[in-house]
């Protein structure tokens, strides 16, 4: 249950926007650390030797698609369409899991090519930045699967739409962070 504030806004939603604001500062610090140390590694592998743009473009498309699924899930919950709400929620979580699979594959390939957390400044800042993002995606997937299981029991009624909306805010934030990482880390090497 969420109480309205004196401004007439749901207090949980307000608190969550404040949390997302604080997350901007967290990712801002990680992104600036990556950019400051970029090109200062004393030994390879360097970004242009190792980053796989075609693979990451596909995972970016995957995450964008998951954002569409998320808003469709919210719309279905709001109109009381339980069947499609469950389908879209599971599709969002599934696409999130595919993104994590891409990231696990990428990390494994990098380690095999000699890039580890300790190898150089690029490895340290790259793994911390993208790993933190991946941890956020993992939390999002668990959250979505929890909502999906609630939906399967028929408890995701229109009066619970705020629960899905807040999960959606988190998921879309994870998406916009990836939009920035994709450009700054992968495309601007």
């Amino acid at each position: 249950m969420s109480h309205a504030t004196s401004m007439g806004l749901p207090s949980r939603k307000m608190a969550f926007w404040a949390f997302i604001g604080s997350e901007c500062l967290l990712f801002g610090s990680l992104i600036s650390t990556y950019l400051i140390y970029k090109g200062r590694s004393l030994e390879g592998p360097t970004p242009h030797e190792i980053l796989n743009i075609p693979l990451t473009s596909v995972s970016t498309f995957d995450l964008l698609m998951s954002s569409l699924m998320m808003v469709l899930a919210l719309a279905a919950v709001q109109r009381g369409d339980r069947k499609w709400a469950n389908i879209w929620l599971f599709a969002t979580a599934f696409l999130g899991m595919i993104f994590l699979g891409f990231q696990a594959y990428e990390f494994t390939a990098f380690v095999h090519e000699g890039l580890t957390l300790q190898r150089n400044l690029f490895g340290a800042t790259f793994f911390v930045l993208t790993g933190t993002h991946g941890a956020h995606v993992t939390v999002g997937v668990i959250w979505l699967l929890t909502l999906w299981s609630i939906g399967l029991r028929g408890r995701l009624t229109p009066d619970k739409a705020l629960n899905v909306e807040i999960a959606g805010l988190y998921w879309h934030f994870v998406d916009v962070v990836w939009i920035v990482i994709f450009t700054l880390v992968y495309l601007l090497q």
Partner: protein
Amino acid sequence: MEGQAHSHPTVGTYVRVFGILVIVTIIEVGVFYVPAFQKLLVPLLLTLSAFKFVLVVMFYMHLKSDSRFFTFLFGVPLLLAVAVIAALLLLFGVLQIG
């Protein structure tokens, strides 16, 4: 219904926004591979990325139709984060003025 205190975009709008996001992503990747764009790569990619960011925040996170106070709660820390990034990049010589 507390989740519907404001009007959200329609499903058609969501799908159109997704189409635009995909097209802009294809342009981003295309620009990366075309040598003619190399000199303009940084401003071009930053602009396209910012455009995608704004689209998701406005339409999928509903800031376009939601209370302005949520925009304030998100916008102030976001601007602060951008300012901190810019200040650090200047301080460490990654960005240079003039």
